Structure formats: C-alpha cells, structure tokens
C-alpha cells in the first residue's frame, strides 16, 4: 500500500459488471404488481388542444387509467421550472412560460407530453394509446433560431418569443477598442443543434408504499438529490422526507439527465395516485424527440486588433434557441456558462457579449456536454483563425501572442483564473502534431489528389461548478457545494457516500483511489455509494466536471476527519498522546516505538469498544462510538482546465469526404487521479466534438418535424471515423481545491469542433458550416470553383 494510488492507472472497478452485462439500470428493475406506462406525445410542433377524449381508451383491455392535465390539476401537481434567473439588460426578469407536466391547452414541440396511458402490460398501454383522441388546432410553427424574434409569439405574453436580452461586459470600453483598432475581423457562425444520445434511454418507475406512505422513484438521473428537491418543493408530488429517488446504474447522460423531466414528475405522481408501481421506459425515437437537445446558437462576433497582432476587443452577439419551454438549466447555459468564457485563454482587455434567448417550437435545449463552453470556444477559436489569416500571420503565432501569461489573471468579464501555462501545452501540441512538417504532408496528400488542412484550437473552461457565493451572485437558485460521508464498518471496510452521481465517469474507481490513498485501505474494501437519496447525504449531482474537484474534495476532507478521530482512539489504545500519533499507510504509529494500530483495528474498537485487544475500557473520554464522518465542501473558486488541440484532415475533392487523419490534444487538467480514466473521458469528448463538427445535426423541417429522429438519419460518429488520438498533458495544479484537480469530462467536446472546422476550412480554402458533411464540403468546393470560373 505504500505506493500512492493517486496518479496511477488503476483498472476500473465498475468494468466487471458493465462488461459482463451485469449493470442494473432502471429498465432492469421489475417490481411486484407493476403497471406499464406509455406517453401520448404531440405529433405537431405547435397546436392548441381543443379536447382530449380518453373514454374509449379507458375502457380498453388492461387499461388502469389514462391521465391528462385535468387529473394533474386535480392533484395540484406543479409544472416544470427554470432554475436560474436571468435579468435582461433593461432590468426586467427573464420570461418563462408555464411548462405543465402534461400539456393543458397547447403543445409546443413534436414530442411534447400530452397524456399518460397506464395498463397491465406495455402492449395494452400502446394499444389503448391509439384510442385516445386528441383534437388539435394546428398553428404555424416557429422553428428557426434566426426567425424566432420576427415571428408570431408562441407563448402568451412573451413578445417576439424573447425570454431575455442579456448582456455582459463593458460596452463603452469595448466600443472604444473597436474605434481605435487597426483591423476589425467579423464573422457569423452557427452552432448546430445536437441530440445528446445517451446509450441508455430515459426511464422511470414510481412506487408508492401505502403502509409507510413513502414514494420511491427509480430514474435515469445524473442528479437524484436535486430531482427530489425540485419534485417535492415545486411539483409538490410528495414531501421530501417521504420521497426517495434512486438513480441506479445510468448509461450516460452528457447533461441530458441532470434535470427532472415531465415524465419523471408524471410517473411518480401516477404511482401515488393509482397506488401501484408504474414503469415507463423511453423508446429511442421518443428519446430523440423529447430529451433536451444541446447547442443551437447563431452568433455574430468581431475582434478588434492592433497592427502588431494584439487583440484589444471582442464583441459577441448571440441568439440562443431555448426550444419550446425553458428547461431547468436552459437559461444559464447560454449566459453564465457561455458569456464569461468567450475570451478563451487570451488576454483581451475589453469585451462585450449580448445574448438573446428565444422560444421556438422545437424540443427544449439545455446543458449538453460542455454546456456553453463549447459554444464560446467555437466562436473565439474560429474567429482567431480567421483573424490570423486576415492579418497574414501564422495562426499558431497569432494565438501565442495573445495568450494570458501571468496567473492569477482577472479577465475583463468574470473569471479570475488561478493557474495555467498556456504556451506549455500549445508548444507541446505543436510538437506532438509535428506541425513543422505539415507542408510536406500536405504535398503528399496533393499527390494523391487529396486536400490536406491543419486546424488549431485552444480552450479554457470554468469547471468545478460551483462556488456558491459566486454562482448565487450570478442568479443561481442554489449554491453548488458537495457532500461526502465516509462510513467505516466494524470489520474495517468502508462505504463512501457521495452526493455526486456516476454514469460513465468511473467514480467508483477514482473516488476509491482517493480514499485508499488517504486512509491506506485496499481498493477492494472501499465501496462507493451514490444515486440514492435515502443512503447518502444531500448533494448536487454530476455535471460541469464538478464531481472530482468539489465532490472528491469533500471525500478527502471527510477522510481527514476520520484520521483525526482515529488518532484520538489510537492514542488511547496505545497509551500515547494524540498529538504524537502519526498516520501513514493505514497505520497509527507512536514514533520511535513499535507501538501501532491499523485503521481496521481502530474501526473495530470504535464500534465494539471493550471487546477487542488491549482496549477493555470504553473509548477515550469525549469520543463518541462509531467511525463515520461527513464533510461538505464549497469551493473558493471555479477550476480552469485548459488545453491545445491540433487536427489534421484530408478531403477527397471529388466527393467532399473528410477524414480526420490525426488528432492531437495536450490538456492541463491539473493533477490526475487516474490517467487511464482521464484518457477515456477525452476519447468520449472528442468523439462527440468531432461528431458535432462533421456529422451530427438535429434537423427540423419548416413545419417543426424532427427529420433526424432515428439513427437512420441522425449521424452518430462511429469508431472508424476517428484516428488514434495523440494525447499528452501538462500540469499546473488548481489552487481552488486541495487535490489540485481541474476536471476533464467536457474538454474533448469543447476543444474539438473548432480544431476540426479550422482544419477543414484550411484544406478547402473556403467557409463551410457545421456539420461539415461530405455534401456541404463538396458544394463549398464546387461554388468556389464556379466563382473562379465566372471571374476568369
């Protein structure tokens, strides 16, 4: 045990169950007497509901009930909420339309939840659903982000479909920078809409116990404690102390499972109302339609530049699509998770960012891997690339010239960045990607009739969400601290309770490594408990790369408390002074003696005083029995991971096919607990980011039908779309948490879209928008050559 577990590539504890098919997901749970639920969803993007006739369906074989807004209202179940208040620049609060858990008089996107059929079998529920008659008055849908403000209002009282018109930064100072600029570079960018596509579709099972009056909801959540809070406090389904939420194994979330959905609310309520377990499992098509989507911005941006290449000002003007309603984190994603990050890792003295958030008849848009930060990074990195080209400067040199060099660095917008060394990872990325020989490779490609391009991207994120004082001053409904409990059992093994949730992040392993390291207990004797509101302390869940920086720190602090107490007990047993006891590798030692106790012996003695070894007496005076400690941690600041990525693509000009030939990333995540797990997180993030750049697009037609509602039309990237990734790290430890960690969960998805797009544009020599599908690249090349021909 002497070797430190922190920093070592320990195999994942969770692999055994997942790789042998023994994961236990919500859909795997079967309760006695359970019923099956099927949601009737709107086939229209925008319509008024004139009438819902459930009479036939209610009489169908096996049907227990058909529930609609009427029954929801009878039981006074509240609607869904938006959790972060944004104030517009004119001082007015954001405008939030009602979002009932079952549509009462209107529907606002295809897939909007209208009614629930509960039957003895799923088959019967689906058959009966076909008998429910919903009388719709179809209205013209508002679909496009760019058109929303010029279209008819879809929600009563929300003029121009505008939820808020928010600003950040010093406008006057920024205007001055532009007035005195030598060169101004502008561009318009679209950040495409994405479907999160967790491998496991959403599911929930409600179970009411009429004896104890407890309501249990098993659900696919990244954040069970917060779900319980929201569902008891706002939806008023059941009081919190009688409400248990269990998120067992969850097969990926990427943000889309942070918040409680209408389906969770309705299923939990239905189980209570019908007094029988109700099980609902989302089908893939419904998941495309009704999971919150990600991104969907249109941005105009411009840079003010001096002749020597110094960037002095940045203006960003974004329209962000919220979809049909404002989901829980929908309003913070395009504002505080986006605006403060638009500066990238550049030292820009002035900036102004304006974001208008609009409603459209599309699925709600909320946090998706990176949440705001990929949009910010895409904007600044595409703009920096274009600026370098227009300035006639090398794109790498232009970036380096503008890097922040001294830390801590107070940015002109919000963040105070504690640590970093941007040139270190950038230079390493240039080296690892063999930038100096790029021209040679380009010539080789040309000889094969292919076009080769290289693209750079650097990024910074604000992770470790979030210091409560900071986020509450920015409008958050709650602070985002984290909790942990270390519970020794008498026989010396440990249950670690965390308020975070693991759904692919490998917390079972990473957190156990921290505990193993801190307490000197073997990994196999440490069990992580999460995802059950009845088992662990309240916590804020997993997203925003916060679990390790915030939750991991809480665990480390609870371990310290265990050691403190252990020292007192050991001193008593060893007849020494607590102050002189040293703790190392799982042993309490009296220095310069052979007197020592293992932590296991101490645990046993704490639970069974008087029965073990020398300690025939009770515990030392003032020490309570048991060995269990709780810690809460609220960080002093965000953590700021950063990095540099380099992508090389090869394009076949005859078909427009674009292949990512090499991909290099050098990231500074601060200290790494398990580099293998970090690498896995990078791979996943890159897959999603490269997916956004080249393949993925949630496409609604003009009537608001989602055309890409299955894998036949929504292009998920596959393993053969990627090269071997070249991965390396630099390290400047975070100063905002004692582990010195910064977070790595989103970096790949944040950094890669601009790296890929800058490479594609470099290869073809003309603009193209995301996703750069083969057709779009072919068309861009064709238009370029047609224009040339015309000019000639």
């Amino acid at each position, binding site marked *: 045990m002497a070797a430190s577990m922190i920093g070592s590539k320990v195999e994942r504890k969770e692999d055994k169950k997942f790789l042998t098919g023994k994961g236990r997901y919500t859909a795997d749970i079967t309760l006695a007497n359970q019923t099956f639920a099927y949601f009737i969803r709107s086939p229209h993007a925008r319509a008024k509901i004139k009438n819902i006739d459930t009479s036939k369906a209610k009489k169908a074989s096996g049907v227990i009930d058909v529930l609609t807004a009427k029954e929801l209202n009878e039981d006074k179940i509240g609607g869904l909420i938006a959790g972060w208040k944004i104030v517009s620049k004119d001082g007015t609060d954001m405008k939030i339309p009602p979002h009932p858990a079952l549509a009462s008089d209107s529907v606002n996107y295809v897939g909007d939840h209208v009614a629930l059929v509960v039957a003895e079998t799923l*088959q019967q529920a689906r*058959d009966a659903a076909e008998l429910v008659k919903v009388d719709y008055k179809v209205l013209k849908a508002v679909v496009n982000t760019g058109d929303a403000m010029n279209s008819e209002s879809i929600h009563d009282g929300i003029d121009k479909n505008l939820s808020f018109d928010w600003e950040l930064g010093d406008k006057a100072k920024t205007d001055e920078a532009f007035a005195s600029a030598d060169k101004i570079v502008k561009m318009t960018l679209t950040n495409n809409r994405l479907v999160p596509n967790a491998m496991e579709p959403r599911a929930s099972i409600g179970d009411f116990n009429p004896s104890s009056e407890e309501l249990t909801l098993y659900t696919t959540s990244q954040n069970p404690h917060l779900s319980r809070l929201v569902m008891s406090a706002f939806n008023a389904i059941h009081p919190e102390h009688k409400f248990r939420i269990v998120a067992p194994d969850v097969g990926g979330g990427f943000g889309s499972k942070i918040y409680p959905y209408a389906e969770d609310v309705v299923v939990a309520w239905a189980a209570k109302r019908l007094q029988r377990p109700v099980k609902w499992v989302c089908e893939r098509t419904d998941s495309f339609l009704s999971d919150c989507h990600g991104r969907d911005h249109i941005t105009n941006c411009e840079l003010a530049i001096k002749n020597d290449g110094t960037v002095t000002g940045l203006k960003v003007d974004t329209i962000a699509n919220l979809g049909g309603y404002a989901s829980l984190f929908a309003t913070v994603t395009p504002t505080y998770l986006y605006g403060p990050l638009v500066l990238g890792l550049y030292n820009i003295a002035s900036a102004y960012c304006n974001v208008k958030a609009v409603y459209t008849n599309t699925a709600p848009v909320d946090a998706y891997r990176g949440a705001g930060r990929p949009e910010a990074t895409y904007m600044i990195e595409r703009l920096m690339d274009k600026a370098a080209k227009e300035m006639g400067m090398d794109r790498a040199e232009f970036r380096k010239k503008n890097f922040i060099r001294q830390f801590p660095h107070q940015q002109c917008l919000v963040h105070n960045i504690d640590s970093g060394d941007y040139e270190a990872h950038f230079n390493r990325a240039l080296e690892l990607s063999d930038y100096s020989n790029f021209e040679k490779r380009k010539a080789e490609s040309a000889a094969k009739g292919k076009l080769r391009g290289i693209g750079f991207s650097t990024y910074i994120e604000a992770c470790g969400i979030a210091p409560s004082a900071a986020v509450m001053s920015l409008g958050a409904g709650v602070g985002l601290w984290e909790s942990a409990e270390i519970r020794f059992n008498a026989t010396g093994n440990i249950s670690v309770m965390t308020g975070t949730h693991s759904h692919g992040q490998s917390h079972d392993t990473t957190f156990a490594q921290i505990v193993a390291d801190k307490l000197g207990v073997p990994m196999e004797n440490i069990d992580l408990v999460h995802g059950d509101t009845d088992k662990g302390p309240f916590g804020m869940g997993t997203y925003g790369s916060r679990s390790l920086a915030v939750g991991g720190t809480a665990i480390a602090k609870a371990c310290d408390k265990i050691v403190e107490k252990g020292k007192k007990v050991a001193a008593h047993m060893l007849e020494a002074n607590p102050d002189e006891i040293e703790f190392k590798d799982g042993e309490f030692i009296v220095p310069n003696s052979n007197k020592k106790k293992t932590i296991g012996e101490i645990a046993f003695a704490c639970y069974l005083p008087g029965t073990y070894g020398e300690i025939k007496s009770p515990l030392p005076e003032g020490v309570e029995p048991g060995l269990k400690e709780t810690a809460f941690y609220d960080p002093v600041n965000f953590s700021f991971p950063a990095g540099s990525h380099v992508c090389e693509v090869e394009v076949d000009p*005859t078909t427009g096919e674009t292949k990512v030939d090499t991909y290099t990333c050098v990231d500074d995540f601060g200290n790494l607990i398990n580099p293998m797990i970090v690498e896995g997180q990078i791979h996943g993030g890159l897959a999603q980011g490269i997916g956004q750049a080249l393949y993925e697009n949630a496409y609604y037609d003009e009537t608001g039908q989602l055309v890409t509602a299955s*894998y*036949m*039309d929504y292009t998920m990237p596959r393993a053969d779309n990627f090269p071997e990734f070249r991965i390396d790290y630099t390290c400047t430890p975070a100063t905002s948490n004692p582990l010195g960690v910064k977070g790595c969960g989103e970096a790949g998805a944040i950094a890669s879209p601009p790296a890929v797009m800058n490479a594609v544009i470099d290869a073809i020599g003309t603009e193209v928008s995301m996703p750069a599908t083969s057709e779009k690249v072919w*068309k861009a090349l064709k238009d370029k050559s047609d224009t040339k021909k015309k000019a000639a």
Partner: protein
Amino acid sequence: MKAFNFHEVKSVKEATKLASNKSTFLAGGMTLIPSMKMRLSSFSDVIDIKEIKELYGIKVKGKSVIIGANTKHADVAASKEVRKAVHSLAGLAEGIGDPQVRNCGTLGGSISNNDPTACYPSACIALDATIHTSSRKVEAEKFFTGMFETSLKKGELVTAVEFQIPEKSCYIKFPNPASRYAMVGVYIAKFKKEVRCAVTGAQSVVYRCKEIEKALNNNFSESALDSVSLKSSNLNSDIHASAEYRASLIVSCAQKAVAGSK
C-alpha cells in the same frame, strides 16, 4: 409490436400454405422486426422460414452462382467460391451493415424487402440475375418494381438467386453517413457481350444507368467517364444529399468501380 401468431416451418411448401393476406415471412428479421416494433407494420401471423434447410447454400455451376435465399450476408462474404467466381459480390455482402446485421440478415430478405438504398438489388441487376421463387423464375429487371415493391405475389417465397459470372466487376457504395445504407451504390459488371451498370440509392428503385453503360461499352476505363455528366432531375434529394450531389457521386463511384474491377 402488436400480438401475432408465430409459426416455425420446415419446408417451402409448408410456408406458402400458411401464408395469407395478413401474414409475413420472417428471415433474418433485421428489417421486419424493427418495423413491427415501431408499429409501422403488423401481421396476424409471422412465418419463420429460418429452419427451411433447402433455402441455404452457395453453388457455383458453369457460368452462374446460385445462392439460397436464407444465406446470410456473412456467409456470402466469407465464401471462397463466391469470392473466386464474383469477387465483388462477396465484397458487397461484407459491406452491408455491421457484424450483427451480416450474421442475421439474408439475401432473400434483402431483395424481397427491396429497400431503395439496399445493396443486393444492384448486384441482381448488374449480374443479370434470375430470381427463383416458390412458383417461378423471374429476371431481376422484372423483379424490382418500385420502392419497397417487387413482383412477388402474396405468399410467394424467394428460394434462391442465380447470378451470372462476369469477366470482372466491382461494387462501390458511398454510404449514407447515418444509416450506412447506400446513399449511392454503383455496381459495374463487365461481361463478354456488354457492360452493365446498376445504381441503387439514387432513385425510388434500383436502375441501370445507360449513360455509364454506353461510355464503358465503348471504352472500359475510368477516363471514359470523365465527360459523363448525369442529369439530376430524376434523382432522389434528401437531407443527406441533393439530387445534384447524387449525380456527381454516381459518376465518381462508377470511376472507382471501374478502377477496382477484377
């Protein structure tokens, strides 16, 4: 999925006897089952034909290769006889879907379903195949009649496909990036008498591209196609590819097919 009666049959006769207006045959189930699960189709009776032994097998006989309807894509891809006789046919099978689809999906299922973006129909047309059914033999060009439509009558079962062995041939698929079915698939087969070029994915049903055939009959070389420019007005257009793009892809796939012919 809606409830149905399930029958497992052992012979072609038994299968056709059970068939009715409300029945369907189940082969690999790769297309049928998802469509039933999504309630796009439903049947009173599902007749599982997988146990019909006579529908399996690969035979090379003189100038043709005969492949039983139940033969899986993976078996065609792995067959040394097929690879030797018509290299491109094994290559086509190898490029269908993923391992799971190839280990379940069948030749008979593929051509009976006649998806406009499926690969096998192009092989049938380019290799001048004859479709053997439970009641007759049909030329491929008369078999594929429209989108998801064939000349099969209700209860008629495909038993085998007889492909003619060309001098050389090649199939090039430009996959739809999402489904990886053919966005455009071009099958070129050079026979002693003629060059045949079948195109899938570009119209509602597989067809022969006369412009390409004409150019290649004169001169079987890539450069013969340099000057071919196809009109796009009769081609499919969707979110993945406009008709204009498809027209260009057909020519570039055809050039790659000529270059890759063996």
